[in-house]
């Protein structure tokens, strides 16, 4: 195999990762495309060294053909990457269209969860009160009101 190709794969992936980590959606999409290139090339690389294309001349394989399977995988992968990239692009565009900016903002829902702790505590207090009644540890003289009344027909 070729050291150069491995380097190219590494370079494409590194560039793609750097872009994906940015905040602009378009850059993320571009990074995704770069990652796709890297992955396709890596698939091909797994087939071994460069060689003759995998076509059958005459009656059968003559040897020296490159491995066709990674190529077939890469072929489908290229088209899928195209479909996915354009979908992301459409998403990015729609986001920009709606908000006038294509930056990824922090998820507000998640931020709220971090502040949830106090609310949970309040809920739990209520639960505790209910359960204390339920435990029914009504010793003589405790005088707990009748909370166990049933649904009556």
């Amino acid at each position, binding site marked *: 195999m070729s050291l150069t190709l491995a380097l190219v794969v590494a370079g494409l992936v590194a560039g793609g990762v750097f872009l994906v980590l940015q905040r602009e959606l378009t850059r993320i999409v571009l990074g995704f495309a770069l990652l796709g290139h890297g992955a396709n090339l890596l698939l091909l690389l797994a087939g071994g060294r460069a060689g003759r294309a995998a076509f059958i001349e005459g009656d059968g394989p003559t040897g020296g053909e490159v491995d066709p399977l990674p190529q077939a995988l890469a072929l489908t992968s*290229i088209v899928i990457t195209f479909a996915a990239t354009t979908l992301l692009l459409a998403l990015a565009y729609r986001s920009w269209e709606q908000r006038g900016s294509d930056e990824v903002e922090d998820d507000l829902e998640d931020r709220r969860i971090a502040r949830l702790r106090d609310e949970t505590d309040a809920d739990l207090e209520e639960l505790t009160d209910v359960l204390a009644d339920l435990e029914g540890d009504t010793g003589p003289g405790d005088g707990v009101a009748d909370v166990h009344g049933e649904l009556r027909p």
Partner: protein
Amino acid sequence: MRRSVILETVIRAELPVLLVVSLYLLFAGHNQPGGGFAGGLVAGAAYALALVAGGAGAVRRTTRFQPTTLLGAGLLLATLTALVPLFTGNDLLEHDVLSADLPVLGTVKTTTALFFDTGVYLVVTGLVLLVVTALGPGDLDVGDVDATPGDGT
């Protein structure tokens, strides 16, 4: 946007040629470079050119198919091709070799895999067509009912 008359004319002449090329790629794909992916992309690219040159209206004039129709038909065709062998007692996706003696072309040999590949071709064409019409129109469009004039037109 200003339209180039020359480009438009050339494209109008080119479009059928490109479509023939794409069909050639599809049919030759089993034995030579090409296949449903490449063929579909060429067909899609031809329409993309037409779109850039003449707007969505031009594309609509040349093809009566909605992109989504192509997508659905393609997947349906591929799935049916995959399923038919089940009814004839074979495994899923098993293909048969067909040969026929045609008057002009002589003996033509092909396999039912061609139908499957045609499905792929249709899906890819549909995808490209959809991408260019979905992302493209707007201000590029002239005479398109859906589009509103953009600010640069």
